[in-house]
């Protein structure tokens, strides 16, 4: 009975009729052209309309209505007093720089950008979907000041690492939190290393670029503190399209877009084409196993390619070069994306349904990726006070084969490094003999590359559902309460297949993992927004959140097969080995923030959050952290020369606490396979810490935003300093302790730096040419201030002779190893054989972190045409290229034939060890280049580069042409990505490279699968 009463009350509320009148008008721009689609709203009321093709609108208003709000993308939002007239016309002014931009801040709170006391950068959805990049993070490259984006490779599904403002955590996660529609999205990536494996990609690659409305990058803890622990590295807040139109405008929208992108390898090593396979100038093929003359060798120190017949794997064929053998192995990759979306917006409800299919065929044969994304949003205004919204996305991310990488036979690039340069790859396509064995140029170390990609496949399938349901109730006109439940759930199957007759695995094998991740967030918050007086606006919120995370993995390994080609446990020869893992964690939080905006020039913001984490010991598991920011819009307060359009200074200080992973507190035993039926357990190698406390990040940020000449010139400058203390990390300890690492709470790592964005509009004209220049620059200085007591250095990773370390007093990620032995004058000290040698002392050899990054974008538009291009650059960031060292070792690189070294040998320029006299001992090219393995610091290069990152050209079909069709607008564009490497100091490879997304692989390179140079074509139509 009571419920019905409430219902009547609600209905009564919304059906209360006020006296109404109609206002009409026309909106034009400064040149008198009609503006179509301008949102016209009644301030403070949920009533709105939109201008038609003639720029005209009509809106019904009540007597309460005092002010009309006009907003239009690219123009200044205007407020116009209605007064008594029934006609309100308006000339809108262009807003070049989006001064009145509203951005999404932490916890989805929209704020006017001008008020913010910290740096936030927003990117429109079109900028991202227009690239046709399957991994959404790659599209942010060059667009966000302070973001360091490293893509694994150009192979399908490879992961992308993104950090904002450098690395804060010594051994933990350094990537920002990814939020989609208010819900954190798992972005875990497999811990890939350089010794082989499959890069299954970072999980946030599931996000479909076509569904993105906008992206807000909250660069540091100052902006993201309200998200708590996981946003200590900042946050990327993605809002998907909802179908909702401003002001409750009614209508149906249909859009269709289609894009095709073609990819070719961006850079391949420069190979030599003068000498073929073998050793000491000898080669004669018999069985590819060493049965002939040097025919087991996978290096190119064989005879000169003289065109004479010679026994080879193909028969007695001419001994000739195949200069494009590697290049021709690659196919033209193609990504084809089709998106279809319908949206509808009515008086009481709105909705959007979108389906996107992305089909990618990799540059490597038989590699692919398919993504199907179905996204549905619906919102209902149940009453004037109560509204509900549901957003849900289903994504299938599927590949039949993701290529392997690193120093491993699964990586086809491995054998192009250890290669006979004369090999005709065309002849390898028929890779299988009739008896099921391989046809190949070598059987000692390598599989036929087509065998690897066709037989030893790595399929992956991920099904993901994520979404959020929320209910908002306006308690009063200044206080509302919002409850929401969000879920991110996926299940993923990964398989690695090794066929029978594979070199090294005659019995074949396979591994299969079933992964399951779930995160649930339940939130309730009270949101206040009130104008206290003419001069004072306050807003704030108080909320609680309960987060629950679960991870489940079930793995099976079959290390030998009974019959070929059946990759099922039932086909195991011997016992399959099984492994299971389960973990869960929860964090309960309460938080609040309050903002005060005074007299339109001063904004003050304070926030507080308290987390309770299940992963910390009961006595330390609750932690509280505050943040505050202030911004002062001095152009609003003081009268300044008229060219000074806008000026703001801002400052903020924030603290963020952090917990750790589950199960770090107690010692455990790990099981291994039973021996002869007797169970085996071994002591876990990690020393746990029973008394962990939360870690803390303190961050200070200062900035200013200045705009001049009616916003045709603008600068946004930020300085920050951030310290992360008491980090919870497993530090490597000497194995002589009986353990390999210990969980500790220690350390202080500091990041400080600047971010600068500049805008310039040299040409601005409604009918003529427009030219905009955007410039971004960021410099981050990292320093490890202290590690744990008694710990001199922490190992992050190690490949071959080079270790990546954190050392006090040094920047994070220094490369450490034995340098080549030189005298005080820098001359090489050669050994008794006349070859360079390494010094016994270990020293710092380089640093993987870049000094600075920058990008310049030039955009031009003229009538229906637009053109823009982006130059992107990085200074510093050393790379240890084992491709260079092994490429020399194997005699495949151009350098190994330079200066006739193969014919004449070389006397290394250096001095003798015993007496310092000049070296006079001649060595062969083979000896000299093999020796590079002992002086690995010669493979460390400065990773600076200048890249022609992007060029896009667009054309909108004029309305006059399509006016008799149902098409509302039609745009065609061409976009090229990763076009040219304008400047680089590193030979043979793309300086942007990574084995994966982890900390320990930064700066290491070997057998890089080439990144892609791509050209895309797209058509976008709306109806």
């Amino acid at each position, binding site marked *: 009975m009571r419920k019905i009463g409430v219902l009547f009350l609600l209905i009564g509320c919304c059906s209360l009729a006020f006296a109404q009148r109609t206002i009409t008008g026309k909106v034009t721009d400064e040149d008198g052209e009609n503006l179509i689609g301008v949102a016209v709203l009644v301030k403070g009321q949920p009533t709105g309309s939109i201008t038609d093709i003639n720029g005209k609108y009509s809106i019904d208003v009540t007597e309460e209505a005092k002010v009309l709000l006009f907003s239009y993308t690219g123009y200044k939002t205007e407020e116009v007093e209605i007064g008594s007239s029934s006609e309100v016309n308006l000339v809108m002014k262009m807003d070049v720089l989006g001064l009145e931009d509203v951005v999404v801040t932490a916890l989805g709170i929209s704020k006017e950008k001008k008020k913010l006391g910290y740096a936030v950068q927003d990117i429109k959805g079109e900028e991202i979907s227009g690239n046709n990049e399957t991994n959404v993070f790659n599209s942010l490259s060059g667009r966000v000041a302070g973001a360091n984006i490293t893509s694994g490779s150009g192979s399908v599904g490879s992961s992308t690492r993104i950090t904002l403002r450098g690395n804060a955590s010594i051994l933990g996660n350094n990537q920002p939190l990814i939020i989609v529609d208010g819900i954190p999205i798992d972005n875990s990536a497999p811990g890939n290393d350089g010794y082989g494996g499959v890069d299954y990609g970072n999980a946030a690659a599931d996000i479909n670029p076509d569904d993105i409305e906008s992206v807000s990058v909250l660069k540091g803890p100052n902006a993201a503190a309200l998200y708590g622990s996981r946003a200590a590295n900042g946050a990327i807040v993605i809002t998907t399209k909802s179908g909702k139109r401003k002001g409750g405008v009614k209508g149906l929208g249909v859009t269709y877009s289609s894009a095709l992108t073609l990819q070719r390898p961006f850079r391949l090593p420069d190979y030599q084409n003068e000498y073929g396979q073998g050793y000491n100038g000898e080669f004669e093929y018999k069985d590819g196993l*060493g049965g002939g003359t040097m025919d087991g060798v996978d290096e190119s120190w064989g005879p000169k390619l003289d065109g004479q017949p010679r026994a080879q794997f193909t028969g007695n064929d001419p001994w000739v070069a195949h200069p494009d053998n590697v290049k021709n192995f690659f196919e033209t990759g193609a990504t084809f994306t089709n998106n279809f979306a319908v949206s509808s917006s009515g008086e009481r409800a709105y909705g959007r349904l979108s389906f996107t299919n992305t089909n990618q065929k990799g540059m490597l044969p038989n590699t692919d990726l398919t993504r199907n994304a179905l996204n549905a949003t619906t919102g209902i205004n149940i009453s004037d006070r109560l509204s509900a919204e549901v957003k849900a996305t289903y994504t299938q991310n599927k590949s039949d084969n993701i290529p392997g990488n690193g120093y491993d036979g699964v990586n086809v690039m491995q054998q192009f490094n250890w290669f006979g340069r004369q090999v005709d790859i065309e002849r390898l396509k028929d890779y299988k003999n009739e008896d099921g064995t391989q046809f190949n140029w070598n059987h*000692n170390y390598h599989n036929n590359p087509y065998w690897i990609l066709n037989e030893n496949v790595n399929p992956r399938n991920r099904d993901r559902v994520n979404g959020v349901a929320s209910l908002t109730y306006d308690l009063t006109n200044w206080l509302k309460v919002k409850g929401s439940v969000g879920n991110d759930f996926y299940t993923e199957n990964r398989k690695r297949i090794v066929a029978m007759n594979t070199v090294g695995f005659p019995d074949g094998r396979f591994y299969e993992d079933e992964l399951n991740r779930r995160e649930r967030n339940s939130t309730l918050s009270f949101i206040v927004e009130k104008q206290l007086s003419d001069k004072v606006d306050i807003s704030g919120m108080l909320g609680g959140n309960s987060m629950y995370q679960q991870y489940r993995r079930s793995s099976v390994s079959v290390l030998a097969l009974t019959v070929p080609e059946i990759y099922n446990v039932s086909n195991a020869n011997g016992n399959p080995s099984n492994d299971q893992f*389960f973990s869960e964690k929860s964090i309960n939080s309460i938080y609040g923030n309050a903002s005060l905006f005074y007299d339109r020039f001063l904004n003050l913001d304070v926030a507080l959050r308290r987390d309770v984490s299940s992963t910390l010991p009961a006595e330390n598991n609750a932690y509280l952290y505050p943040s505050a920011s202030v911004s002062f819009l001095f152009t609003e307060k003081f009268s300044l020369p008229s060219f000074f359009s806008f000026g703001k200074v801002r400052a903020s200080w924030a603290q963020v606490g952090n917990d750790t992973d589950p199960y770090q507190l107690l010692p455990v*035993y790990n099981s291994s396979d039973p021996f002869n039926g007797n169970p085996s357990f*071994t002591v876990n190698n990690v020393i746990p810490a029973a008394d962990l406390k939360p870690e803390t990040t303190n961050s200070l940020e200062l900035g200013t935003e200045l705009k001049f000449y009616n916003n045709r010139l603008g600068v946004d400058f930020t300085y920050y300093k951030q310290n992360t203390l008491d980090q919870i990390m497993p530090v490597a300890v000497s194995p002589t302790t009986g353990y390999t690492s210990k969980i500790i709470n220690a350390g202080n790592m500091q990041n400080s730096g600047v971010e600068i964005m500049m805008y310039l509009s040299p040409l601005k004209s409604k009918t003529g040419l427009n030219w905009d220049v955007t410039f971004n620059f960021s410099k981050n200085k990292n320093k490890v201030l202290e590690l744990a007591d*008694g710990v001199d250095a922490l190992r992050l990773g190690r490949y071959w002779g080079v270790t990546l370390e954190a050392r006090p007093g040094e920047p994070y990620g220094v490369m450490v190893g034995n340098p080549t032995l030189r005298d005080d004058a820098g001359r090489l000290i050669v*050994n008794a054989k006349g070859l360079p040698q390494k010094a016994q002392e270990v020293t710092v050899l380089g640093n993987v972190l870049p000094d600075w990054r920058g990008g310049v974008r030039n955009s031009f538009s003229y009538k229906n045409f637009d053109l823009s291009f982006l130059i992107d650059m990085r200074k510093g960031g050393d790379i240890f290229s084992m491709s260079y060292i092994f490429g020399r070792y194997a005699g495949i690189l151009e350098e190994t034939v330079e200066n006739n070294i193969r014919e004449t040998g070389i006397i290394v320029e250096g001095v003798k060890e015993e007496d310092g006299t000049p070296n006079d001992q001649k060595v062969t090219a083979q000896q000299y280049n093999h020796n590079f393995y002992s002086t690995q610091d010669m493979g460390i290069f400065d990773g600076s580069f200048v890249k022609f990152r992007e060029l896009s050209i667009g054309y909108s079909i004029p309305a006059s042409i399509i006016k008799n069709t149902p098409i509302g607008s039609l745009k065609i564009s061409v976009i090229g990505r990763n076009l040219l490497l304008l400047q680089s100091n590193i030979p043979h490879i793309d300086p942007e490279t990574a084995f994966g997304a982890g900390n320990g692989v930064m700066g290491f390179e070997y057998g890089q699968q080439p990144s892609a140079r791509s050209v895309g074509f797209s058509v976008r139509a709306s109806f």
Partner: protein
Amino acid sequence: MKNNAIAIILVLAMLSGCKKIDPEMNVNPNSPTNVPLRTVLNSAVVSSVRTLHGATMNLTYTSTWAQQVGKIQYIDEDRYAFRNAHMDLLWENLYSEPLSDLQVVIDKAVEAGEPNMEGVARTMKVYIFHQLTDVWGDVPYFAALQGAKSDGTLQPKFDPQSEIYMDMINELKKANDLLNVGGDDIGKDPVYNGDISLWKKFSNSLRTRLLMRISKIDPGTAQAGIEEILGDPVKYPVFESNADDAQVSWLTNVPYRNPWFENAQTRDDHGISNVMVNILNDRNDPRLQYLAEPNDSGEYVGQQPGDSTQPQLALVSRIGKAFRDDASAPSFLMTFAELKFIITEAANNGWNAGTSVEQAYNDAINASFDKFGVNIGNYLLEPKVNINIAVSSGEKAQLIAEQKWIALFSQGNETFAEYRRTGFPLEIKEVPASAYPGMGIPLRFPYPTGEATTNRENLAAAQSGIVKEMFGKRMWWDVN
């Protein structure tokens, strides 16, 4: 009423944020915090033998540097161009795997009062530690393996090898006292299937190995120790036949197949050395056919160790099938034949070994032939074998060392150590394409570079005197 509703919602909100966290949530459901000690012992035995007799340590380094094996592909290590990563891996695989496990077993067995478990674990710990110090010299020992204890150090200092040896010898004596047939059950271990009497024999036999190792630097201790053991077989039983040998028989299925076999499944990097072939041929030793395989032309052609370039594979003899082509072939921890050679050497030193040099020598060679299943024929009368021809104890010592070197085939860690101790066989010479020309045979393994990150100062102290990582400083027991 509205206020009530707000109040209720507020309370709910706060509850969701302040809800108590269940401490059970952080209890690891995947791994136990307590397990039966026998399962840990199992794991320690298997993992230690797998490393000490594995393809890296035993085949690629020690057997190669003792020149029984020659590398035929990837020949860098045969030229003493070691890989740092190998050193780190071996170090870690010994310290943080079996040694760590055994320390936990010892501590818990003491606590629970299980003397047999403790005695076996102490024996295995010495078995691992002596091989570790035999290649690296001074290593963390007394303060090692204490990382998880509240007073344990994370940076153990490197102890002098002399002190380590003295303690290991005491540990084995203690193990003998602890081991008691009929005492606590240690489960079905991979070496002796739980037979304590055999563990007792192994423990004492191993003690003779250690004592003989220090016989040149500290003859007094060595003689007293060996005479004590051999003089009281009731208190200190030792191996009495090949049936007592300490060995782990591998299984036919992955992941526990013989490590040399496993390596040969995918790699063909090791041949028999020409030093080995020549020594056997010089003595008309029929064991050649067991220890080596003929090449493609049916001949026994050994690989020159550390040659400047790799050979034609078809021309080289590989390691014998019994060691390389049998998944379940055993790894030998210590054999009766070796014990007999130790007794022979003791007798030759003039110590009271309860037997004559000649008798013990012939018994030892017979045991080796029996072990390999080869008919001995008139081998003992071969001129370069016959002990009766040798006049001086020095000449006898050479014969003993040569024969021991042959009999120890497949136990590279032991042959490499014994070569450095005795200097025999004389046929072993610096390889022609040494990466350290003129420096001779490596005296030791290079220290792992990981210690430079985690234990820098202690490592630096231990490195003093070492030249070019493997030279300049001998083992304590290696007196030229």
